[in-house]
């Protein structure tokens, strides 16, 4: 792998950039691998990367039905934060945040992680108490967050209306280390690093079946033929239920569309990321100048990756009320991503009823921010066959036992 740097660009510029090599190879599948990851989204690629980097397992294939990074990794609102309430959540999201902080250097690929600061507005007294609790919890978890006053909110977000007639802003939970990253670059950076380690990323290859013997996984049937493996990791987000079905087990997951949109680009007007859960909306401004806006999930199951309209309307009403100056901006593009929701809105990183088959899913509306931590924990689980502390609480049997990790407590809507 040729290293990326400003010097490399200068060198290649002399030959019209004709000398750049592929960021990742396009191999045909081998007969067998030590490990196969189904799903070349952020979580799948990160799993493969840390399998190689942390555990020395490099005979790995990542199989992707479409194009890598084309699922929720490529269609989210790019928010990164770790101010979670419950201990297991805070642990894995903060691990992710710490890895994000060094990810560009680690991957030699600029993922544009930008810790521009993130705040969650409190607009009812109930929300105030909820966020105060989060600050106390975060302190004990070693996650630096703070409670800030409406005046400080206004200072950080000059375009905000802090005394709207409906829901005045009573303060905010602020995480200065939170921010955004370039979502596609995260997938591409991991993909390039995986490919450089000799792993095979096989795109346009759909898994159609899982083969097992005596309760232990043996390989996968795909549209490019059968591929054997010693270990299998299922990391397919919205389609987890279908792939789990192939592997012979059921998941407590449902798939719904989560809505998002961007405005036309304008000159910088908001540096931080703002989430407003009472009125259901969140917004940040991309480096390109677009206002990136997230809304709610549809109340019905679907797989279409389309936006429905009524949520967008609600979200925009809320945001125009909160940021009156956006009224004359225009919606450029609206879309939906299929998110995999568990009963407690927390993920599953778990062994499964099938031997040597592992699953990572259920990230719901908050998966992008978790990618490095999720991959780290999943790689650890796959390599050792047993979960480490980051993954232990996220086992799939917790629903049967009632040991929920319920984040909706703190963030009523999206996380």
């Amino acid at each position: 792998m040729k290293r990326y740097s400003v010097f490399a660009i200068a060198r290649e510029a002399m030959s019209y950039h004709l000398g750049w090599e592929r960021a990742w190879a396009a191999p045909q599948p081998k007969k067998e691998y030590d490990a196969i990851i189904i799903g070349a989204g952020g979580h799948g690629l990160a799993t493969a990367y840390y399998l190689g980097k942390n555990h020395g397992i490099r005979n790995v294939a990542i199989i992707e039905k479409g194009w890598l990074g084309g699922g929720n990794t490529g269609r989210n609102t790019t928010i990164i934060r770790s101010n979670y309430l419950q201990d297991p959540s805070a642990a894995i999201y903060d691990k992710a945040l710490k890895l994000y902080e060094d990810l560009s250097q680690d991957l030699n690929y600029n993922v544009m992680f930008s810790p521009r600061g993130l705040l969650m507005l409190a607009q009812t007294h109930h929300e105030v108490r909820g966020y105060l609790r989060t600050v106390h919890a975060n302190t004990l978890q070693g996650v630096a967050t703070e409670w800030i006053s409406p005046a400080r909110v206004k200072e950080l977000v000059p375009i905000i209306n802090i005394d709207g007639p409906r829901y005045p802003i009573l303060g905010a939970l602020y995480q200065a280390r939170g921010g955004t990253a370039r979502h596609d670059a995260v997938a591409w950076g991991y993909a390039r690093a995986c490919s450089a380690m000799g792993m095979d990323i096989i795109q346009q290859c759909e898994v159609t079946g899982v083969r097992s013997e005596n309760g232990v996984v043996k390989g996968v049937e795909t549209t490019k033929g059968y591929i054997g493996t010693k270990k299998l990791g299922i990391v397919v987000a919205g389609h987890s239920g279908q792939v789990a079905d192939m592997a012979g087990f059921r998941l407590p997951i449902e798939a719904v569309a989560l809505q998002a949109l961007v405005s036309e680009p304008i000159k910088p007007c908001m540096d931080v990321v703002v989430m407003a859960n009472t009125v259901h909306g969140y917004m940040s401004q991309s480096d390109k100048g677009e206002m990136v806006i997230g809304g709610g999930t549809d109340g019905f199951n679907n797989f279409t990756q389309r936006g429905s309209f009524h949520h967008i309307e609600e979200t925009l009403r809320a945001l125009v009320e909160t940021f009156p100056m956006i009224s004359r901006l225009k919606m450029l593009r609206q879309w939906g991503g299929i998110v995999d929701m568990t009963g407690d809105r927390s993920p599953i990183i778990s062994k499964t009823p099938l031997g040597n088959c592992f699953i990572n899913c259920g990230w719901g509306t908050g998966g992008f921010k978790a990618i490095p931590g999720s991959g780290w924990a999943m790689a650890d689980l796959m390599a050792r066959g047993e979960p480490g502390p980051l993954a232990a609480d996220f086992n799939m049997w917790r629903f049967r036992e009632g040991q929920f990790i319920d984040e909706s407590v703190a963030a009523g809507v999206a996380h």
Partner: protein
Amino acid sequence: MSTRLAKGGRLIDRTKTQGFSFNGKRMTGFAGDTLAAALLANDQMLVGRSFKYHRPRGIVASGAEEPNALVNLGSGSRLEPNQRTTTTELFAGLEAASQNHWPSLEFDVGVANNYVARFLPAGFYYKTFIHPRAAWKHVFEPIIRQSAGLGKAPKDRDADRYEQAYAFCDLLVVGGGIAGLQAALVAGRSGARVILLEQTAHWGGRAPVDGDVIDGKPAEAWVKDALQALGEMQNVTIRNRCKAAGVYDHGYVLADEKVADHTPGDGRPKHRLWRIRTGRIIAATGALERPLSFAGNDLPGVMLAGAVRDYTVNFAVSPGDRTVVVTNNDDAYRTAIALKEAGLEVPAIIDARASVTGALPAKARAMGIRVEAGRAVVKVKGGKRVTGVAIGLQAGEGAVLDEIGCDAVAMSGGWSPVVHLWSHCGGKLIWDEAQAHFRPDPKRPPTNHDGSAMVTVVGAANGALTAAAALADVAAQMGGEAKAEAVEEAAMEPVWIMPQGAGPALKMKMWLDYQNDVKVSDVQLAAREGYTSVEHTKRYTTLGMATDQGKLSNINGLAVLAQSLNEGIPQVGTTTFRPPYTPVTLGALAGEARDEIFQPLRRSPIHAWHEAQGAYMEPVGLWRRPYCYPKAGESHEQAVHREILNTRKAVGMLDASTLGKIIVKGPDAGRFLDMLYTNVMSTLPVGKCRYGLMCNEQGFLSDDGVVVRLTEDSWLCHTTSGGADRIHGWMEDWLQCEWWDWQVYTANVTEQYAQIAVAGPNARKVLEKLGGMDVSKEALPFMAFVEGHLGGLPARVHRISFSGELSYEIAVPASHGLALWQALIAAGAEFGVQPYGTEAMHVMRAEKGFIMIGDETDGTVIPQDLNLGWAISKKKADYLGKRGQERVYLARADRWKLAGFETLDGSVIPDGAYIPAAGHNPNGQRNTQGRVTSTYHSPTLGKGIAMGLIRGGLDRIGEVVEFTKMGGGTVQARVCDPVFYDKEGEKGNG
């Protein structure tokens, strides 16, 4: 130079001049001009700067696809960034300013990027700015952010208002060109309810510009007749300036009507957003012309051939005095002919096709225009304006054979159907080799719930590009008779790069996406680096991600990608078409829901009285409730303390009208409530009240309240104020989805009744003073109710208490609420009555150890955690949550359980505080053993009291634990009984 022609212009009214300004410069145009036409008429070809390299840019198109000519329109509270000059109708006093430059349009420092463009290929930022780590946030990113973005960020609140409306029809025809008009005529004559939409102010589309002849009439006359016929049909609605923005499932279409963009400030809503539900959509959305990729194709003065024709014919504006036409098809000859007919010079037509035959080229030659077949534009010369073109062989590598001086270039790479509305809901496309474009695949339409096609595409949008073909297509798909005279056109030839053998130096000057500065070389770089999926290419290069969403660039970009990959264009495929077709103003999407009517407030019947008393109100769900009633000079805290002490010592009144009230009635109502609540409600005697708990299926406590048995078959369920709608929905969910055969009816009567709590030692005296009802302990014992008249008002009086005091909750029809309140205030005056707010209520219930949903519960707490096992029936076979509560983790003995806490130093435990435990967990986090759930200063007890959850619960009474404090330190508190006040309950029972 570009200028206004002495005559012509079918859309302008030369008798009405309109003054406007551009970058402060005063200019004039005519009524009927677009801003773009007026700018060209004033020789303002340079109108903006590109996104990345800040290259000078001019107007390219004449419609919604314009990528360059975007301006800041208006100022202050009417500033609108990124407004397309090509779709902005000119009005007197219009102010426009160009975007994305500093200090000025003519001299832009950002153009430095252009000189180092060689070092800034697609995706360069992924490969650099990596070290040192802090530099991205503090140095590189701020610079990128400043140089990116386009229009100015508005600062003020929008001065305009927006409206939303609904419409229903059998057929929605989108597009007011000849195909759309004819489709609407055919559909209208069939008697169907039809809505016809046109995004511009004008009807007829391209046909009148092209001089087509329909049914023996000039297109213009045919269009006029068609409009008249449509106007006479009662079942047809036509609406111009109204764009169908998006198609959603089940025939739902979003349309955006620009009501007052051209008459700002006239009092009408700026836009009207239509939500249309239609049986079928007829998309007659036309086609967009593609640019050609030759070096320097982005210089101001290089325009689409169709746009040049539009400006000349519609607005009598010539983009240049000498215009070179460059094309791969016959249609562009119409532009050359139109220019010539307008008395302008066309020094040459550069046609990439080796052989040029056909009627239109013959006509052009006959007019004396030089036609160069098999030739290419090698390079456009000029800086801020075209000065000439260098031409060579299309089959060559860029050797220059000739140079032609000119001040405009009209280019045409062929036409692409507008398939957005077909594709929004999943309609698929096929590649048409002959016309080199994607068009709808009739075999794979977007479908309705029953599998039928939701959208039909007709005319140019369906690949029928000429007037004759478009009307024939309408006839074939919908019937009808209209015919246009056919003008013979020879086949076009796909030309994706000009000249085809161009080397890398030329390709670095061939623009695909003008606004985002994506060039042929960038797409090739993406392919080289393995970003070979069309989505990867798009995201890596930003091709098609500008405000025109690839309307001009996508097909050209795809073709370059396909060539780089040695694949066919259909194999490469397209990116996804997303709504909206063109951007929609956020204000229009938000509609009228602004200020006070954004989520309208719910008001109790006594709301106005509270406000008049100067109550400090807090949002509770959609309600506003009095938090406290501060007197002059009193802080909120002082007011709350006064209200509590007064209630405890004399008597207080609370407006409890917001409390949820749901009537559950029917033969199976008792059985239903036994499933809903953890305790038994079916055995509650008529006339009695019982406190009940509701859990979700997981077993977690979700709501609580007092249930009242009204009659043999009806119960009144009180819910929390915030929970009323949710619990009503929850009841209906079970009744409609699971127990649909149970005979139970529910009605949410929350707003039908006002409810007032009168609490305190003097409460009975106040009611007795009002009179009309026996409210003695014997007649109305604790947890009973009576119906009758109180002070002359029909009332239901409950003996229930949330404060722990002797308390009556009086429900009256909402219309009597204020009267009762005022009567109670008057009657209570001699007994010291004062109103109290929600905060006093909270503190008093905490003093009594009563739980509060949302404080003691958070969705993870079961009743058993709150020592409420007594409210869970052991006898019932089942209730919602029972099985959930039996799961291993929920049945564990070491769960955190409710206890009281009193601080050692009398201070108040901070909201949200945790009780740390020794050591750390495997993830390095501090262990915890509990947390506070409610914490107050108790004026009754004169110290800080709290409720909380702690491992071991009441077993730990007497132990001293530490709570966290924000910013460090701890608060020590002793575990105690959570009932701090009147442990025996004598007061409430009194």
